[in-house]
């Protein structure tokens, strides 16, 4: 039995869904906003179902990444839940819920820019002349 709160489950599964570590995700400062957005945009039954499935995947995997990924592909990318799952990933990557940008902060915290070794246009500017060289890698845990 899982003793995790739904928000903890949200964070844990987000790590597997996004490919970013918990530290990276927490570092965006967006966890609360994204969790709230996710929950607010769903019918309450769907929230319950989603987290039930998530907890099952996490609890039954014995911490094997491979097993968790299998569960994600089978269940979270299954026809019933796929749109919620892709919305969730998109939220972390772009700060959008569907077509809407959740907030100015969410846009600037989009992980897609990090994946691209760039930065969100209009924010986190890397400084004069930085574009003339390869991007500098700042190692994360």
């Amino acid at each position, binding site marked *: 039995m899982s003793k995790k709160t739904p928000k903890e489950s949200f964070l844990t599964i987000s790590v597997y869904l996004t490919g970013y570590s918990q530290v990276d995700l927490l570092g965006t400062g967006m966890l609360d906003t994204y969790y709230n957005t996710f929950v607010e945009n769903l019918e309450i039954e769907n929230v319950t179902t989603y987290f039930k499935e998530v907890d099952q995947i996490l609890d039954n995997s014995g911490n094997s990444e491979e097993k968790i990924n299998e569960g994600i592909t089978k269940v979270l990318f299954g026809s019933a839940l796929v749109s919620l799952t*892709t919305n969730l*990933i998109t939220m972390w990557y772009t700060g959008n819920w569907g*077509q809407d940008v959740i907030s100015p902060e969410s846009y600037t915290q989009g992980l897609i820019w990090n994946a691209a070794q760039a930065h969100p246009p*209009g924010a986190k500017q890397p400084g004069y002349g930085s574009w003339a060289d390869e991007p500098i890698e700042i190692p994360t845990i």
Partner: protein
Amino acid sequence: MNDHEYDVVIVGSGIAGSVLTKTLTQAGKKVLLLEAGLQAGIAFDAEKNFQNYQYYLNTFYKAGAKVPNSPYPNIEDAQSINVLDIEKITPENKPTTNGYLVQEGPLPFASDCLRGPGGTTLHWLGSTPRMLPNDFRMKTEYGVGVDWPITYDELKPYYEMAENEIGISGDVEDQKVPEKVVGDKTIYYNVDRTYGKDYVFPMKKIPQSYLDKVCMNRSKGLKVELNKVVYDIVYSSTPQGRNSIPDPRYKLTGITWDQRAKKLVLHRKDDYEYQPVGSNWDPYTGQRCEGNASCVPICPVQAKYNALKTLRKSDPEYLAIITQAVASRIFYDKGSNDITGIEYKKYKYADSTVFETKVAKGKIYVLAASAIENAKILLASGIANSSDQVGRNLMDHFVMLTWGLLPEKGFPYRGPGSTTNISTFRDGTFRKEHSAWISPIDNWGWAWPTFAPGTDLSNALSEGMFGKKLRAHLNDVITRQLLLHFECEQIPDPNNRVTIDPKYKDQLGNYRPVIQYQSTEYMNKAMEAAKKVSDQIFKAYGVEDFTDYTMKNADAVKYNGKVYNFWGAGHIVGTHRMGSSKEHSVVNPDQRTWDHDNLYLVGCGNMPTIGTSNPTLTMTALSFKAAESILKQLEKNEDHGSTFSKKQFETT
């Protein structure tokens, strides 16, 4: 207010209007500036200015579609042309009436501009190459279009003023672009001649991007063939209006009116050091381009030039500004043809239907409301049109885009929008057959044509990718994206035009511009040629081509069995052209209308042809020329006992 008489009434606070306002007030002339946009946008007070700009920035962050106008208010009383309003025009869907423009087609005009304080330079990119000497004599050299009534050499001193005013970063040596190919030899323009020996820009060139270097390294010595002629692929760093490191050799201090010599003078001082102009709220912000990579639509630190920087240099003693004032009509005296006033509608607040109609009066009047709006106001007033050229010859660059994946990482989405261009096809005898083009390397990946990188994410998700695999995939794909522009010059065509129709008015009862726009053989041939060149360049780079043209796109043409798409460049040119005769043009080389002695037009509408340069630098040079002519005219009238009343200036 209606009783005041100013020396000059100017409509529009974009770069054209701001250059005039600054130059004329600094010369002690009383100026009234009418601006359609909201009061908040003009704030001279640092704190208010900052607050307003932060509001723009947050609006941009929050915008779903980050198009050029996305940060700025689009008000019903003075709508902006918006690229989001563009639709495909079909026999069933014609005209399209979304937004401000009414588009009759057959193709939609695809560029926008911004109605608000500071105008379109708030969201311009800031590329500022000069036009080439041959661009001024297209008819003589190539038998197409028209010649300008002035030569490159005549415009040269004004180019220097424009480069001083905007604050250009660039390397003059790199502007040695090909003029033509003779046999197997490329003849280049000599920069000692075009720019003058020892001429430098105010600031050193903006560093060229890592991506530029990848492209240049992969194509050393590359030659391409087009219609049996072999061309060298030549790269030029792009001069641009954004701050970099001052060039210590630059000694030009600023522009003033020399009353005795009756001309504008760009002063030189040997111990001068150029100071980059920072943001409008704090001179120490924006001293250098910081690599925000969002120049279009908004530079967060204002390292990029915008017209409000010029407007702020105006002498406040001589300036009155009325915002939320939309010019609608111009009145003239039927006997003398002199302009007697500009009617404007002052709305109460954004989107309000409550407005007051007033008339602004001056000795001289200047329209600086941008090419389409200027033409529309003239047509609505039934003036300046004895040549029947008002509204005609609407031009833009057809931007044909090609995109693909590099075999190595070029790391786009960093730095200013473009730092290097391929200048090979900016000039040449091929212009007898099809347009010339400039090819900027785009530093922002596939964002423009495919809405990347958002679409890269959605595509990957639809393939079921997630987690580390997704992250690695995005890293692999986004970092290798390459986008080239082929910005093809459009030739003046009288049928590409702005008209008005009483059926289409906005909420203040002002006319909305009605546009007719088409492509010609000359353009289509250029796109065909450009695609052939792109294919050869992509091959040399080792790029996998993902370019995808479809008839579904709003601007699509079929030529020799192939489909081409083009996009708008934002370069709205030609609607009230300058010429050497009253019969064929709207303004004379002084930028004054042939028909009305006290009416001047400024902006890209005056340009007879577009060449391959982004037009604003050239237009700014012409605006200085206009300022000079106006000062001459005002002082001539003063010398000879003006026929105009000489009321004392009262502040409003």
